[in-house]
């Protein structure tokens, strides 16, 4: 079985977010980048299929050369090889088109991707890839088993979960629960050394027009200090709710 794991290169969720150029560009200064946490669930599950069922695992990223350390980490975790599509990831649809173009040529049986990235939270790439390739698709997966030519997928929906049986080729939108957090792998020294020897192929993108663009960024307003109003001073409470909070 050939598995493709799509890897996003995202700021660590503990990083402080700042913007430059009059809030039109993300400021990467001092930001630690990591594998998107949802993609890490997908990669860890792919490793399980590699070790138990002999699958081959390719890690793929759409991005410029600054994303290579993240791909190397995926290799250190155990991916067999890695591919970087050499273009900025600016828009979900164009990223999906890049992934679909590569995956179509390579005929993967299973494509795993996080259900969304933790930076732009778009949640669109796995579904778009599936539709572009006309593959089966299950989103928000919290369980995946393979039995012969069938996949048993557990999906979460609002208020419950359901188990679906589907066939390959298949695209999965992974989320927390696909593997337990304590199963996530930290690359060991041997893995890091081996990752240096593994192939990381850089391919040029297909021509795609982005469907969206970021015009500017904005940070939420700082929360104001809590005001304590005496229980007997209802007039003041009403005045503040009306004039300051503007909720009545």
């Amino acid at each position, binding site marked *: 079985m050939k598995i493709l794991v799509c890897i996003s290169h995202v700021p660590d969720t503990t990083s402080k977010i700042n913007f430059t150029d009059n809030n039109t560009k993300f400021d990467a200064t001092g930001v630690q980048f990591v594998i998107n946490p949802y993609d890490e669930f997908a990669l860890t599950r792919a490793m399980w299929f590699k070790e138990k069922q002999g699958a081959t695992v390719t890690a793929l990223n759409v991005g410029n050369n600054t994303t290579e350390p993240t791909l190397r980490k995926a290799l250190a975790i155990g991916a067999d090889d890695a591919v970087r599509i050499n273009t900025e990831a600016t828009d979900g649809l164009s990223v*999906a088109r890049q992934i679909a173009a590569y995956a179509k040529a390579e005929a993967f049986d299973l494509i795993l991707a996080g259900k969304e990235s933790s930076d732009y939270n778009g949640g669109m790439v796995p579904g778009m890839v599936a539709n572009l390739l006309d593959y089966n698709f299950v989103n928000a997966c919290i369980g995946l088993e393979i039995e012969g030519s069938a996949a048993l997928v557990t999906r979460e929906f609002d208020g419950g979960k359901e188990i679906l049986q589907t066939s390959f080729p298949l695209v999965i939108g992974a989320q927390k629960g696909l593997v337990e957090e304590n199963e996530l792998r930290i690359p060991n020294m041997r893995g890091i050394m081996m990752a240096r020897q593994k192939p990381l192929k850089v391919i040029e993108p297909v021509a795609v027009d982005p469907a969206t663009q970021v015009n500017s960024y904005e940070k*939420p307003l700082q929360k104001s200090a809590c005001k304590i109003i005496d229980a007997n001073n209802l007039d003041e409470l009403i005045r503040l709710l009306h004039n300051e909070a503007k909720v009545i």
Partner: protein
Amino acid sequence: MTVLVLADHSEGKFKNAAFELISYGKSIADMANTKLIVATIGAKDISELSRFGPDKVVNIVNERLAVFNAKAIADALSQLAEKESADIIVLDSSNNSKYLAPLMAVNLNAGMVSGAIDVPSSLNPFVVKRVAFSSKAFVHTEIKSAKKNNLSCKKFLRNKRKSIKPCLRRLFSFTGGRRF
């Protein structure tokens, strides 16, 4: 050009998010001076949807759609969007909608934004504010016209359900009682 909103229901009962979403769609339709169409799948009683001002309610009834099947529903909604010349499509941010939206976006060759928290700040260019970086920032995203031979330009907007109420409240205070 019309605005299309999907009103989701659970076992025949419409969720509050569906009504909020219709109000949100109505405000965009008013901004664009166009019609609002509400679509729902296999609802038994659609009368309560009319209270929120849509110009038309379409109830799609089909045996294949009786059980949630993302591909089939996305295809049905995409066909409806084409038929009604919907340029702006609004879904909530339930897990099912997150499943449907990217499928529809590809079907319609539409730009897509998720997590919108306000009405568009501009319709031409179409710019909408959305959450990003796990709610540590907002992004003002422009949805550019997607090109395809026989398709009109589509803009695709998926709303973030949890953010609708604060958004309502803010607009209420700024616009002197106008609800969207």
